[in-house]
Each structure stands twice: as structure tokens, then as C-alpha cells.
């Protein structure tokens, strides 16, 4: 983890409410592992004080990018920042996904909305190509499909309004695929908590391993404040672990959903 003032290379609207931010971060970018995040201090946000966490989408040389949706004051202020603007970033943070090794499991990625961004590096660095299942409310919520296809991955889309792909939730095409076979497959998911909970249930039902990138409200991002905790099973019961430090990626079977 490094704190660095980074320079914006581009910050452009992708589609609808989604933006792509690319920053030059020579000390951070080379360290990034799939599933890690960056904690951004957005200038001009007072009276709001706290940093905002963003999953790291792509890494290229000394740059990394994030894919974000304008959902509140922080992301709106970020979307107004221009090229050469500066941000303080702490990163890369957290424990990411276990990247499949050669001859290892075939990854099935499950993404909800911009959760897709957190899975890109995993797809890029995985030894085996797999399938990515992506869901959203409407067509505009289906992001970076082309990037995954460019990696040679199969992409299966589901939208709640049927505007793209299958009509319904992302778990439908996932279930269909698992019914055809589970051997050697492993799930990796990132998205809103209800989707993660559903994926955890499916993983348990089909007895396939799964790693979930938990979506929790965060404060310090470096393990000090204990805001972003999730209940994780231990040998003697359970304990709250930090999404920013022990996570954001947790083994699905270790999350104690009854307490979450």
C-alpha cells in the first residue's frame, strides 16, 4: 500500500451514469492484484471528508483505471474533474481474488453492474479462460462486455427489463450453466450484496468453490476504523473481519450470512 498524489489522464463518460477514470500512478499501478481497490480523496467535497473506495479496473504500465457510476456527491464531484487534475490515492488495498493457475479451475465470473470492473484483471490474468455472467437492470448497466470478449471470454448477459441478453437476474444463466456441469469450476463474484448472497447460496447448493468481493460501506480503507466488517466463520464461531484488509474478497463458505 502506498499513498500517492496521482494525475488524471482521462475521465470520460462511458455511457449513461458510468465514467472511466484513468490516472498515472507509477508507484501503485505495478502493485495491483486482481480484486484490489484504491481509496481516493476527491478534492472539493467538503463538508464531506472521507475517501471513496473504487475497485481497480485495468492496469497498463504506470496507469490504472476505475469504472464508476455517479451515485452521490463524491462520484459527481469526481466526474467533473478534468485531465491533469490531481487526487490523493491510497492503494492498492485489500486482498484480491485467487488467480486460477495453469491446469487449475475454470473460472465462472458473476458480476452485477459495475462489479464487472473488479473482475477484469482476474479474467486477464487467469490461466484458464472461462465464462463471465453479467447482470443489470437495463442495457446501460452492462459494462465492459467488449473488453471481456476481447480477452477471449464468453459473456452471458441478463437484464431485469430484458433490454439486453436474457430477461431476468444474472443468477439464471449461471444456474443453467452449473446444471450442465460443475466439475473443475469455481465462481468469482462482485456486485451488490443481494447478488452475492444469491451466489453464495448457489455455490453451496452445487458444492462449487466461490470467492466473493464484498460490497461494504468503507471509512479509512486501511484496517484501522473497523467500519467495513463482515461476519466470518472461525474455528471457534465467528468474528467481524475487515472488508478493506482481510477482504474485500472472502471465500463464500466462510461468510456468515445470518449475521450479515
Amino acid at each position, binding site marked *: 500500500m502506498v499513498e500517492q498524489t496521482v494525475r488524471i489522464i482521462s475521465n470520460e463518460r462511458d455511457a449513461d451514469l458510468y465514467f472511466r477514470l484513468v490516472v498515472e500512478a507509477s508507484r501503485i499501478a505495478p502493485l495491483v492484484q486482481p480484486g484490489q481497490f484504491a481509496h481516493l480523496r476527491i478534492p472539493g467535497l467538503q463538508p*464531506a471528508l472521507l475517501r471513496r473506495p473504487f475497485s481497480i479496473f485495468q492496469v497498463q504500465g504506470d496507469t490504472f483505471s476505475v469504472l464508476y457510476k455517479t451515485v452521490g456527491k463524491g462520484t459527481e464531484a469526481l466526474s467533473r474533474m478534468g485531465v491533469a487534475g490531481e487526487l*490523493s490515492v491510497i492503494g492498492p488495498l485489500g486482498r484480491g481474488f485467487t488467480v486460477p493457475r495453469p491446469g487449475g479451475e475454470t473460472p465462472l465470473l458473476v458480476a452485477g453492474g459495475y462489479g464487472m470492473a473488479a473482475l477484469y484483471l482476474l479474467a486477464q490474468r487467469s490461466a484458464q479462460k472461462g465464462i463471465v455472467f453479467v447482470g443489470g437492470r437495463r442495457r446501460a448497466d452492462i459494462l465492459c462486455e467488449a473488453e471481456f470478449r476481447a480477452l477471449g471470454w464468453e459473456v452471458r448477459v441478463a437484464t431485469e427489463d430484458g433490454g439486453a441478453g436474457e430477461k431476468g437476474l444474472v443468477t439464471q444463466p449461471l444456474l443453467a450453466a452449473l446444471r450442465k456441469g460443475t466439475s473443475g469450476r469455481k465462481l468469482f463474484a462482485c456486485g451488490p450484496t443481494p447478488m452475492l448472497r444469491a451466489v453464495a447460496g448457489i455455490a453451496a447448493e452445487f458444492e462449487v468453490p466461490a470467492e466473493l468481493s464484498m460490497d461494504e460501506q468503507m*471509512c*479509512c480503507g*486501511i484496517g*484501522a476504523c473497523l467500519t467495513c466488517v463482515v461476519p466470518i466463520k472461525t474455528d471457534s464461531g465467528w*468474528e467481524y473481519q475487515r472488508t478493506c484488509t482481510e477482504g474485500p474478497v472472502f471465500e463464500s463458505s466462510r461468510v456468515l450470512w445470518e449475521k450479515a
Partner: protein
Amino acid sequence: MDAKMNLSVAIGKLKMQNPVTVASGTFGYGVEYAQLFDLNQLGAVVVKGIRLQPVAGNRKPRTVEVSSGMLNAIGLQGPGVEGFIRKYWPFLKELKVPTIINIWGASIEEYAEVARRLDGLGGVGALELNVSCPNIKEGGAQFGTDVTLLSRVVAACRKATTLPLITKMSPNVPSIKPYARAAEESGSDGLSITNSIPAMAIDIETRRPRLGNVTGGLTGPCIKPIALKLVWEAASAVKIPIIGMGGIQNAADAIEFMMAGATAVAIGTANFYEPQTALQVIAGIGDFMRRQGIRDAREIVGALRVEDSSGHQD
């Protein structure tokens, strides 16, 4: 730093190379921030509150951002005193700067037992008695808002240890002076002022509280003027040194606390968004002293000029 300048201060037997430390609960156990800078630059490290047994902590949401501050109701999640010694003490004891361990309990006996255990550890800089956490039903705040209980907790810890004791005061009292005096008379070597201020926030769409615990403690720049007044009032009532805290973001904020009577200051919520704040404050105090021709940081302590000191009458 100018070689002729002295920034060191003392809280009882506790020597600090500069007057800047961190507020308990905002700095984890030090090890988290050691990833970002060398902790040996601080005046002291203050760790999150521990009691005898491990604590799971409160339900979520545990924090929420508000205008110029935040609310927290973490619930003092922690590893318990033995867990702390096993997991964190090996790192902390190697630091060149002192560690102040914040402790709490549900009973006076528990405070004393934790104090005794940590006294036996060797090398602890000081103990900070948390008698003012607003987020725990069974312990904490009740001791800080009852003069008799406060005296008994401090006295029991005084008997249990020879380590410097710093009592972390509650802001939630009509006047802080009798509480400050009670802590001093019972053997406290210093006071930390202030803890967070009881507060809440509501989501009007869902009609639910924004904190899982319903209420929590307000911290950050929005509480600085309140904390400053508490420090000023307490400073007039006691001779023991005060560590001032509450919304400090920069050296100017810290100097205000020192002028109000704080011998040292602690950075709290700012650690969460600008982890280097304490280092900037240390440098900034040095710059201020140089600019004003001040040789010793202690000259700033209580330097406030008030023509009508009626506010200092009981």
C-alpha cells in the same frame, strides 16, 4: 527541525519527543498506519480500546459521514488484553516512541485487572482510561459521567499500576471541571479531552437510523470548537497536563488546543482521510514556533490571552 527548538513535552512520567499523538480508535493498533509512514516520528502512539475479553463489536452500519464530521458506533471491537499482547504488542514494543494503551471495562475491577496485566508487560508508555465511550451499554460512559464512579475507577487503576494514567473525559457533562478535578485527585497523571459527542442521524427515506446502534459518537472538524472549550475549562481546574483532541486537521487547529491549555494534542478522524495529518501537524507546529520565535513548545501551552476570565469561574 531547528536544533535550538524544543518540541518535547511530558505527561507525568511519559516523555513525548513532540506534542502530537493520535486518538484511540482512529489509529488501529499502529501497525495499519506503519504501512504508510514511520510511526517513530510521532510523539506517541495510542491504540484502540481494549478490555479483558475479546469484543465482537456493534452491528452495522458502524459509521456514517455527516457535515464536517462522522458518527461512529463501532462498539469497541477488539481482541481482548491477551489477544492484544499476542497480536500487536510484539510490533508496538519495538517502536522508539511510547505506546499509550486505551483500556476499558464493565466494572471497576475489570479496569484494574487490565491495568495490572499491562503493567506487568513492561515497556508500556501509559494507560488511557476510557470512561467515555458512548457506544457501549454496559461500560464506559457511565464512569465518565458520575464523579464518584470516575474517582473510584481512577483510584483502582492507580493502585493497580505505576504506569502514567491518562483519563479520557466525557464531553457529556454539564461542567467538565469537577470531573477533571476528580480524575486528578484520584491519581490521574493527565487528561484526554475530549471523547466523541453523543449524536445520531436518520435516513428519511427508510425512516431508519443511519447507525446500527441508533446513536453514536460525533467526531471530526465539526466538534473542534466544543472540544476546545472543554480543554480551556479543564485547564483552569487542574494542574495535570491535558491531551487535547477533537477535529484537529492541521497545525493551526493543534496550536489552538495548546493555547487553550493542552500540553499535547491527538489527531483523530483526520487519520481516516489524510493519514499523514499527524506528521503535517508536527512540521507545522515547528514552522509556527520558528515564525514566532518560540524556543519551547511548552510556551504555547495555555498562552491564550483573555481579558475577562469570568468563563473560568465555577
